[in-house]
């Protein structure tokens, strides 16, 4: 049971990280957009997403 739960949690974390990677990739792609406001928003989104992903990947003792 513990192993199954651990596997489920690891899968969910993997899914989260994949989604965040997609978010980062999209925000990077925004920087290539011709519209300056899109580029600006994409840069901001990239930075805050990177920060949040790093912080929330820290293991919390439970």
């Amino acid at each position: 049971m513990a192993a199954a739960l651990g596997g489920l949690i690891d899968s969910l974390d993997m899914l989260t990280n994949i989604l965040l990677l997609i978010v980062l990739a999209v925000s990077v792609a925004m920087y290539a957009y011709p519209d300056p406001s899109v580029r600006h928003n994409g840069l901001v989104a990239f930075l805050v997403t990177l920060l949040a992903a790093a912080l929330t990947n820290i293991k919390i003792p439970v």
Partner: protein
Amino acid sequence: MGEGPVDSPMLEAREEKKKYFTLFGFVFALFIFSLFMITPAHALSPGKYSDYVWASDYHPPAAPANMNLNCSFFLPDDPVCADINALDNESRDAVLLAAIGRTSPEEYQDWVRYWNGQLPIKDYYDNLSAINETADGAYGENNSLRDMWFRLIDFYPAVYDQRDGYYYLSDQTLVLSPFHVNFVVPNSMEGDWCAQSYDIKGYDVELRKSIGNFSTTGSILPVSQLMAPGEKANLTLTMSATGAYSYNLSASRNASCGNCTQECVFNATRSSADTLTLSHEYPIKRFPDTFEYNNTLSVPKTGFAQGLVSLRLPADFLYYQFSVKGYTYTVSRHELQLQSYGGVYPLLRLALIPSPSQSGTLHITSSSQNDDNITYWADLHYKLPVSAPDIGETDCAFTLVTPFGTKTVERACTTARAESSIKLEVLRVENGIGTIQASVHDQLGNPLEGSVVQFTSGGLVLNKTTDANGIALAQLPQGQSTSSVEGAVVDSENASGAKAIIFLAGKSGTTGKGASFLSAVVGAAPILLIVLLVSSSMMWLLRKRSSAWLVLLLCLALLPAMAWGQDAGANNTTQITQDSSGGVLDVQATLDACRGYDFSNAVRHFGECAEAYQLSNEFSSMRRTATKLIENIGPLVVATPDITAYKQPYSDMVRISLALFRVAWAFNSLYLLLNIFNPNRRNEALKQYIWLIVFVIFAYFSFTLISGAVSAVNNVAEWVAGKDAAASLTQATLSAEFVSENYEMLKLVLPFLSVTYLVLLARNITVIAMILFFPFSLLLFFTSATKGFGRAALTVTFAALGLGVVNAILLLIYNILVTTAADPTLSGSFAATFFSASFIIFFGFVNLLVLAVAFLSGIVFIGQSRGAEG
């Protein structure tokens, strides 16, 4: 004026004198030179050092005639020697060894040393290996070092243990170890030499004794500083010698002078340096010097005195003897025997021979003896065979004889007036009759024969007398309910120690299978109630109002069922109490005693008192006794329940919740990010995105704070009160036996403190939730871009608050059940279920619920956002 010619006679005289002087000098030189020349090849000049032997003069020491043991040495002027000397060799030595036995170990040791020390062991090496005996030394030769040997002929004091071949040594031991070496120098060197001269440098020799890293050339071994009692080791004797000499050799050669034909000149130097090392090992072990002795007597006013001798001695003692009032008892393990060994020189040694025996005039009632080859333990219970109440310390003595000496203790006992103590046990219960056994002993554990034991149960009183084993048996009828039986030693001077109470089970059963099933069902009802309450809350949140009301009605329906179950259990108990013939009166004496107990008696009799309180429904009294316990062992009483079983499920649920939360956040992030490409929603989407990130980080780490606070409270509670009741009470120096016997009752007492702790914990977490979530939620709610998030956060906050209130209500119900319920056994397990449920709910499901609500709120937000777009 011219001088005449020189006076020639004076000149001639001078010339003559010169000639004579020259001739004289030449002859003198020749004389000196000739001293070397004419030294013959075999005429040697003496060496510089003495104590050497020329090879031509050297003869190896011849074996002297065999010596015999000398009777007159040991028994001077004793006519028995004449008879002994008339025997043949073999018989003579055996008889003589038996005849020269001494009275004490010290005398034995001294005479062995006297004999061995006067033997003329100087030159000849008595090789014991050649006569199939164990070698006691070593022999060797090397060129100039001839006839080199050493022997170890005596330890003083020591005794030889035949069982393992080791020598027992005392704390300080003298080693007798003669050694010998001859320094033999060859007379001449081979070869055609016209002259040889010697430089005999001499020789060095030493004999060194070593044990481990210790080494000495002296004769005393400080055994007590080198070895532990009973420890075995090897004593190594090492003899080292060096001898050196050199030759100056001259050879003939043709002389340089014309008239000389040969001259003898120095040609070479030949040196010789010889070394030799011999060694041998001797197995030794240190005799332990353990000595502990205790002899305690309990003396009644009349009757036989009984005593206990407790001993801790070296395992290989010879014998010991203790005496009380002239009656003695002797335990023997070994005896000393003189043995002769050796070839030419008859050496003596003391050997340890097993010789076990026990005898005496003192009546030993029981004996326990043991040893581990180093230490001997014994507990000997004895009884004086006549009435002897007036015994004092001076009436006792103790003597211990070891191979190294004798130790005597005068005034060798302590006496005390006998005090009886009683212990009751239910041997069997059959056909409505219970057999109660009373064991009566004094303070030393000796059974007291002839003591009258009064058994009292209700109105029934029986007097029985103890037998030789201190046992008295009584048969009492079983009552309808459990009844107490008191046993007291009549005329005991020690009232509190000579009384005991035991409970005899009644004829009716306590709980049958039906009652067990009932309590299981009733016990499970609270969990079902709580699950339904939570489900109802979730449905309300999801706006399924009708479904939520339905679930709430189900909860209300469960309440009467639980109340009925509790009443049935209580009625059962009441019935048992009322049907017992004077059940309350049966425990009255116990209750009276228990109410008056001080702390030590409250602890000792807590089990009996608690059962009496239970039968009489006197929970206020039980609480008073429990309070007395708690006051005395206060901070050490456990204040936290054992949450070990909940830790893993809690951890798993939290981890899943966090993982789901992050997934929801990631999906939301992607959705918002894609909205940035929409020029109408670009800026608002970014704002919402940033607020989302901030909310996630804040919620994530606020959870860390909450779990950290919970851990801190848990750690403080553990630090104060320990992890479980048994460990905490053991820390309070109560015996484990008491804890195990009374644990079931103690578990009912201890939660009186745990409720306070849990309410405090619930309040802590609720406050943290208020501080972290509520203001932030309001901020998000009032910001238009994040109104949806605000609503979600507020939902989370109020859900947490609501569950904290639910948890507190559950704990209060638990408290009421424990303090006021009629049957504590039944309601104890019922109440414990509430407690367990509250704990699971709060620390497990609350986290899952809070985070699931956040997840759902996120979905609501997305739905709202899409609605706004539409």
